[in-house]
């Protein structure tokens, strides 16, 4: 019973997205303000420092925070306009229940009514179908404290195994590969190592648009004379000036990376000393790439063999080097293999644990790094502990003061939870900070699944497209309305400070969760009065785990502008660079090579669907767009998805920029304007994914998962494309007219 209560148009009319275009009070209100709050941007894993200006309990602007060392005042457009989310007209001010008779399909109710209803449905479903029939889907826009609370709430409040989070769509492939090979899941280096590298290799990471501030670190390396190598199907803005560009066909990264290792071994650029002293399994991996010749990889990937050789030479012969990867190689059914292939390159050449050396992922989500460590991942307990490991369970049970048996076992991953909902095995859902209708693959399937739920409650600050299907909506809090900590892509734990209180009847997220726990009769496990108390319990819970936060205090974070975990003791300065001295986090202290030979993607092109589709992001939008599609200046920057295609393909299709094309896969189809550019492979098209409904790129993607990380294969689909005959002017703010008229 969770289909839309009223038409989509009515929902949009009442709940948006409506655009907030100006600071509260308008541009002419003057720029005097009551105070500046030092906090962080919520719109990606880099956690740039920013000062929010507050006046009359409204967030009215920002000021660069020059003293914060990571970004020194720099911000991308999302950071600049981040302050506009707070006064959005769409902000949910009351808890609501679904009511097809009410305007917009939802009726404001008291907290008692909303929470009682939620709890009674949880209890009804769990009594009828078992505890695990009620799932919790969470998100890593949440702080560490809230992530910790959600993990504990799922296990001890809801008592369900089926908790997972939208980090499953982010960097789980990197996390899984890192844990497997290195014993730890964290960026290997602080970003300050990038400028020390002689070669910077960016593999499937659109740094300029998805981690913009990292661009300045790359340039600092180039200012020292470093070479930049980019592996990507598109000439992204950072790739434009690269010294070496490998325009790889989607899904063939492991062929290219394997061929590079092949060349490195062949030319004996291997750091034998390092391999012998600090690793195991090299020979097996060498064997696995013996047939990965550059010529073979060139045929598969479309990258000229000599460029593969040159990339291998640069990486293999440089004294220092940083290899950074992101969703481009991780969103695959072989995401873990791809990351492993990168790690193998780093281990084989000894590029770990030294200044300017490392192989690292760039975590995308706001607290993607920290969120996954605090135990709201289906297979993990706090401190990156393994939920199936008896010792780990026993330790957490001692911290939580519960019986070990009370902690459920390993649950389903995010996509598997949606599959189980679709199959009718999971009947109830609570979601927070997760908009699966936009972010999961195969939109139609997700919508069907949501409609099959017997009960769905969503904690949200705006009515996301998924929450539109909810029976109860619990008005929660925005990032700048609560305090706590978040851990950046670097592994730097940062302090978030509250700029204001939640408006209207909205509650802080954790107040909602605590109240649910109380009504479920489980308050004995949730004695928290504030986020500081959660942080302190979390520190203890993480102690002894690989992600050890025990020594970190809020005061230390603020004093030294962030603390890098692991930080096992009070007074410990933190650990910016991992693996120093070649010490890895497996019991034997050694890193493990794993073979990652090339294998095909889940779907390959054929006569019926002859074109590769890869999806991704644009700089002005964040994730499913729940927040950024409400910020006018960001929407103006890139208002709708465009289908990027090469002139050669466009010519075959008879398409020019602005022609609306129909892109069809085995899962669905969508119409959108084409943008004809030479910066993409001729056999591949690109569509950004931030939009819902008919504009959702995920209508086309598939639910094929990596066997280890269970990440969906967003980056490779087979599609066919035809003209619709319609033509639209492609809006591009970056083309200005002579006499601009803005207002």
């Amino acid at each position, binding site marked *: 019973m969770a289909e839309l209560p009223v038409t989509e148009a009515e929902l949009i009319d009442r709940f948006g997205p409506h655009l907030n275009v100006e600071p509260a009070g308008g541009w*002419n209100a*003057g*720029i*005097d303000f009551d105070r500046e709050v030092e906090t962080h941007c919520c719109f990606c894993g880099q956690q740039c420092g920013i000062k929010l200006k507050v006046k009359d309990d409204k967030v009215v602007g920002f000021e660069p925070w020059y003293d914060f060392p990571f970004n020194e005042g720099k911000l991308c457009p999302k950071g600049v306009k981040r302050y506009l989310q707070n006064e959005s007209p769409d902000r949910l001010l009351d808890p609501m229940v679904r009511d097809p008779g009410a305007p917009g399909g939802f009726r404001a109710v008291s907290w008692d009514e909303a929470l009682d209803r939620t709890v009674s449905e949880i209890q009804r479903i769990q009594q009828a179908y078992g505890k695990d029939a009620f799932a919790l889907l969470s998100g890593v826009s949440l702080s560490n404290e809230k992530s910790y609370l959600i993990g504990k709430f799922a296990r001890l409040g809801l008592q369900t195994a089926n908790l997972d989070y939208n980090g499953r769509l982010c960097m789980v492939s990197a996390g899984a590969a890192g844990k497997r090979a290195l014993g730890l899941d964290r960026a290997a280096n602080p970003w300050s190592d990038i400028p020390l590298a002689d070669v910077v290799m960016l593999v499937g990471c659109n740094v300029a648009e998805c981690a913009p501030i990292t661009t300045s670190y790359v340039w600092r390396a*180039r200012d020292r*004379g*470093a*070479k*930049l190598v980019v592996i990507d199907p598109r000439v992204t803005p950072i790739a434009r*000036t690269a*010294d070496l560009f490998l325009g790889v066909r989607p899904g063939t990264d492991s062929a290219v990376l394997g061929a590079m290792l092949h060349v490195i071994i062949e030319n004996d650029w291997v750091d034998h000393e390092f391999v012998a002293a600090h690793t195991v399994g090299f020979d097996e991996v060498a064997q696995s790439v013996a047939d990965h010749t550059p010529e073979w990889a060139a045929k598969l990937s479309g990258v000229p063999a000599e460029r593969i050789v040159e990339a291998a030479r640069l990486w293999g012969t440089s004294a220092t080097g940083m290899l950074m990867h992101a969703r481009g190689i991780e969103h695959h059914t072989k995401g873990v293999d791809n990351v492993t292939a990168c790690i193998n390159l780093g281990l084989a050449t000894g590029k770990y644990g030294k200044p300017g050396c490392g192989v690292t992922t760039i975590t995308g989500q706001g607290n993607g790094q920290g969120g996954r460590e605090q135990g709201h991942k289906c297979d993990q307990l706090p401190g990156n502990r393994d939920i199936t490991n008896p010792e780990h369970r026993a330790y957490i049970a001692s911290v939580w003061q519960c019986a070990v048996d009370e902690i459920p076992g390993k649950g389903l991953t995010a996509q598997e939870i949606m599959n189980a909902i679709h199959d009718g095995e999971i009947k109830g859902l609570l979601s927070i900070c997760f908009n699966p209708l936009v972010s999961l693959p195969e939109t139609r399937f997700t919508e069907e699944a949501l409609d099959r739920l017997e009960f769905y409650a969503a904690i949200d600050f705006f009515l996301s497209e998924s929450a539109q299907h909810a029976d109860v909506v619990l008005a929660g809090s925005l990032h700048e309305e609560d305090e706590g900590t978040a851990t950046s892509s670097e592994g730097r734990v940062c302090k978030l400070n509250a700029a204001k209180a939640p408006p209207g009847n909205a509650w802080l997220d954790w107040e909602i969760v605590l109240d649910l726990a109380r009504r479920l009769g489980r308050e004995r496990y949730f004695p928290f009065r504030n986020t500081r108390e959660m942080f302190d319990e979390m520190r203890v819970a993480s102690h002894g785990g690989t992600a050890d936060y025990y020594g970190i205090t809020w005061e230390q974070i603020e004093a030294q502008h962030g603390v890098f975990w692991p930080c096992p003791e009070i007074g410990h300065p933190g650990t910016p660079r991992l693996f120093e001295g070649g010490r890895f986090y497996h019991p034997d202290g050694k890193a493990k090579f794993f073979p990652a030979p090339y294998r095909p993607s889940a779907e390959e092109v054929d006569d019926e669907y002859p074109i590769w589709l890869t999806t991704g992001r644009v700089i002005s939008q964040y994730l499913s767009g729940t927040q950024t599609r409400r910020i006018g200046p960001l929407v103006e920057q890139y208002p709708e998805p465009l289908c990027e295609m090469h002139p050669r393909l466009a010519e075959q299709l008879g398409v020019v920029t602005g022609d609306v094309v129909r892109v069809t896969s085995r899962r669905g189809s969508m119409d959108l304007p084409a943008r004809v550019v030479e910066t993409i492979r001729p056999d591949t098209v690109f569509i950004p994914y931030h939009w819902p409904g008919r504009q959702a790129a995920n209508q086309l993607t598939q639910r094929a998962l990596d066997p280890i990380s269970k990440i969906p294969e967003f980056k490779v689909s087979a599609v066919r494309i035809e003209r619709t005959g319609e033509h639209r002017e492609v809006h591009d703010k970056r*083309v*200005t007219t*002579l006499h601009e008229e803005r207002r």
Partner: protein
Amino acid sequence: MSSSTAATTRASASRRDRVDVRATAIGLVAVGVVLVGVYLGSGGLRWFDAALAGYLVGVLLAVFATVYRYLVWLQRPPTACLNRRGWQAFRARGRRGRNAVGLVGEVGTNLLAQGFIRRRSTTRWAAHQLVFWGCLLAAAVTFPLTFGWVHFRSVGQDGSHYRAYLFGVGSGTFDATSVVGFTIFHLLNIAAVLVIAGVAVFLYRRLRDPGALAVERSGDFLALAGLFAVSITGMFLTASSMWLDGQYYSFLNNLHALTVILGLLYIPFGKLFHIFQRPANIGVHFYKSAGAEGPQQQCRRCGEPFASALQIGDLEAVLPQLGFDYGDGAGGNYQETCPRCRRNLVTLAQSARVGGFG
């Protein structure tokens, strides 16, 4: 950093330092015209109030300086060009009727109602309107009084009734204690209140806004200070005569006269000179319509029309007079490249000079 290319960079013109004989002459003529007007309008100085002679001197100096500066301004090549083009467009055959009607509308909406300011900010507009109408009102009262064109005479013995005379022609009598009389005698106070209110809004806005404050020029505050000083000292005079039995009146009178005379002298040199420049905006509108109706300049690089050929032609004529040479050395002129292509060209040229990273 520029020594090697000094020949091609623009040499500063020195013409501004010379005294302009023509402007001096016309300025003196203007002073003469005012003097003749005073003589004739005051019945051969019969109605001229000698106590106001200081103000008259101030007016004469201001007239001379304003005319002088206006004429010098009009000789600057771009101003001269616009002045010529504006009138040409205004007088163009077949458009005179339409233009005359348009002119009336422009004066109303643009110069009097100042809608262009309202579109920037309503409070800014309100403040400007208060100062504008306050000053106009004050000028409408003081100039005729100073020139002896208007004077008042007491009627009857009780001193409560007056008759106003314009150029010696009398109006009906009025009671100074009536609403009409009170208003007439307090016109300057009303003007002062308007101006002070406007100045207060301006100041409040500026002092609260660090952005506006940063680009503030000393002249901006001087103008506000001057308007405030003239207004407040004028009101002191009323206060003195009404509530202090004329105490300090003489001192205050001198003080007020001083502020007014300094204020008058400030007009041609300071921020208030925009009063005389702003009407050129109407000429611009005629110039722009004439340009829009004529041929358009196509960009030499992208081929898109981007401005009127009239204006680009004028710039190509004016720039050399200012010492600039944007000729491309091949018979073309860089001014015929659209602004967007100019920006792109700069970027492309820079890229070529940082060729080959790494």
